[in-house]
């Protein structure tokens, strides 16, 4: 481990070498030995800190022994494990501060001067939110067949977009179905909000555009992603489920009178009116 002196210290040009080793008599206790210049250079000091000796012991500094309390003063910052080590010989006007940061569990050493870091404030940085990164990851790793296409009204806004599904088989073949995706900042804790933007005739999509897909509600988990949702949506057009419907009339038609149902699907896709409901023309133009 290497300890570099603070740059403004002129009389302390050389690096410190610090060894931290276990006390073989009390294995929960660590002995720290600090030397100058090299691993066998001049010993600057040592001290012991450990679970069983939580009260500071003594420190040997340039041949003289002192209670640690005379040399070590703790900084009452929230860093409880940061030690500020005052080296006596430099006098009070020129303190060198050596910090022993033990918060990570072992011997990370850094050196810090008392000078306030003026750059700190300048380093203010906007940060990408977890939701944003996750959406970037989900979107750039989408693995969609040619039957699905995303569209971003504002390419700079990754949180709001549409998905167009153009089934190439099944009863909904020939249609282009557009779903809106709205992702909030609590993604992926919250699922994306997905709605069908058109009025369509489908047992699992109601006339308001609500979609009955388990992973959009009760079965959503943060490990799922946008790809899973999109694949799930496409599946609804290949295998509509009449058993757990949202549009009950369509579902009844589908299970009781499949011919009529297929006819209704075709006619609704052309934008016809069925039983008083005006459907959207979704045919691919």
């Amino acid at each position, binding site marked *: 481990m290497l300890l570099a002196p603070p740059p403004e210290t002129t009389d302390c040009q050389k690096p410190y070498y610090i060894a931290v080793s276990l*006390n*073989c*008599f*009390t294995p929960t*206790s660590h*002995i720290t030995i600090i030397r100058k210049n090299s691993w066998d250079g001049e010993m600057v000091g*040592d001290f*012991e800190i*450990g679970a*069983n*000796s939580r*009260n500071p*012991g*003594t420190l*040997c500094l340039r041949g003289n*022994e002192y209670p640690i309390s005379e040399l070590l003063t703790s900084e009452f910052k929230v860093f409880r494990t940061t030690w500020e080590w005052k080296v006596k010989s430099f006098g009070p006007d020129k303190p060198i501060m050596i910090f022993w940061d033990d918060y990570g569990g072992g011997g990370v050493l850094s050196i810090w001067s008392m000078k306030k870091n003026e750059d700190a404030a300048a380093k203010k940085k906007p940060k990408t939110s977890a939701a944003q990164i996750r959406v970037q990851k989900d979107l750039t790793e989408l693995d969609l067949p040619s039957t699905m296409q995303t569209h971003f009204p504002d390419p700079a806004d990754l949180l709001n977009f549409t998905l167009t599904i153009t089934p190439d088989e099944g009863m909904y073949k020939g249609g282009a179905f557009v779903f809106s995706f709205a992702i909030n900042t609590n993604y992926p804790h919250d699922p994306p909000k997905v709605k069908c933007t058109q009025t369509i005739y489908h047992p699992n999509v109601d006339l308001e555009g609500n979609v009955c897909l388990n992973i959009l509600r009760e079965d959503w988990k943060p490990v799922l992603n946008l790809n899973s949702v999109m694949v799930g949506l496409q599946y609804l057009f290949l295998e509509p489920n*009449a*058993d*757990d419907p949202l549009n009950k009339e369509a*579902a009844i038609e589908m*299970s009781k009178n499949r011919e009529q149902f297929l006819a209704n699907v075709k006619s609704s896709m052309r934008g016809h009116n069925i039983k008083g409901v005006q459907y959207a023309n979704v045919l691919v133009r």
Partner: protein
Amino acid sequence: MSTSTAVEAQPDSKTRRYDRQLRLWAASGQSALENSRLLVISASATSTSILKNLVLPGVGHFTILDPATVTPRDAGNNFFLEGESSIGKSRAQEAVRLLAELNDGVEGKADTSSLEHILDTNPAYFASYTLVIAHNLEPKLLERLSTLLWADDTLPTLVVVNSAGFLGEFYIQFHEHTIIDSHSETAPSLRIDKAFPALYDYSTSLDFASMDPTDHTHVPYVVILVRALADWKAAHDGKPPQTAADKKAFKEAIRGMQVKSDEENFEEAEAQAYRCWTETGVPSDIAALFQDPQLSTLSPTSPPFFHLLEALRRFTLEPPHTLPLTSTLPDMKANTASYIHLQKLYKTRAEEEKAILKGFLSVPVDDVLVDSFVKNAHGLKVLRGKKYGTLNADSAALASNVASSSKAAAIHLALSALAAVGPQPTIETLTVAAQALLPPGTELPEDFSDAVGEMCVPFVLCFSSVSPMPRVSSPNADAVSPRFAHCSARSPTADLPNTAAFLGGLVAQEVIKMITKQYVPISSYCVVDLVETWTGTI
């Protein structure tokens, strides 16, 4: 549909005030709280912290018994004293004034007499209270008080709270505590293996084969299982699946009943299939209650709980040898009609069984109580307590606690020793006092030095490394030489605001459980260490 009728349905302001707690203990628990009377001895920071958490939810009455006047120290660490302006005034009166302000529905009273005087002159003083709480009470008075309150099981429950710095513990002294609604997290049996006639008939009458496919995916799993089990039994001499191979075959049979893959209700049935071969009987902890001494000496004046327990015992002697059915049906994949129908079958049967149980009652019991008893029969509890101090008088029991839960025992021993030694403890006096509680030759737990160290500072020995010798430090003075033994006070008397608040919350939770007779209170010491932030029991 008009909004005006709906607004009328909005609950009254008291219900709205208590909304967040009524969702836990309901109106019955609330009314128990409102009918309770508490006595709190001393208006320490810990005492007022406890009371705050009981005044807010609305206990009926509290009295603070404290002859002391407020010192700056009190004013500094007790939120229910008003800084400078309280200093010199009666501590009980100031605390009562500021606590009562929290809830108009609660009556508070300050009593500036001394406990000793009351014990000497008016032992009947305590009878009107439901529960008495004592914090850091001097051991001799505590002994007198606990003995007095133990004399008769109609006298109030006593909660003893002790704390010092980051450490604390409490104990509830009660004779007997019965709980109907323990808010048990285990669900009552649906009795699929012992289907009642209406459920059996309904399940076996369904024609799965010709059913509409949509209806087929909405048959509740309970019905599927009852049916599958009936079919199985018919083919297996009336026996349920027994071997691993049977169980596998049974699950396959369920899968075979599906008309298409991924029928969720059949998947649920398969997952719940164990219910068919796990025989529903009387749970062992409920059966154990039937041995309760109260049942053998049952008289018309016995508490209704035990009359109900006796009726329950007699109920379980009859076939099907189970607890009465409850009408709570979990949610399951089903359409509305089949689910509601099933729910009705359970409800009707539950009413019938409740009537049978009532027939076994030898005294009249309030219907609401019977309902609650039957509904919660699978979670009934009877707790029997011990007098405060029983553990410390039993050195063998203490020693076994030291062996089994040494960290908690260490804190208990340290606090017990501190109470015995008084406010100027040293390592030696505390060690001697703790050692005296244990059988001769028993070692104090390893963590004892840490615990007493919170009250006294152990000195540190260091073997120096001036020479290249290794150094060793030891908190154990005696190992080297007794003449180094030396200590200073850390916090033998500190009533820290955070510790007070922590204990205040824990004790109030237990008091609420005692008073409402809901949830399960602790029946041992609860020990708290706020250095490493953990709680334990001994």
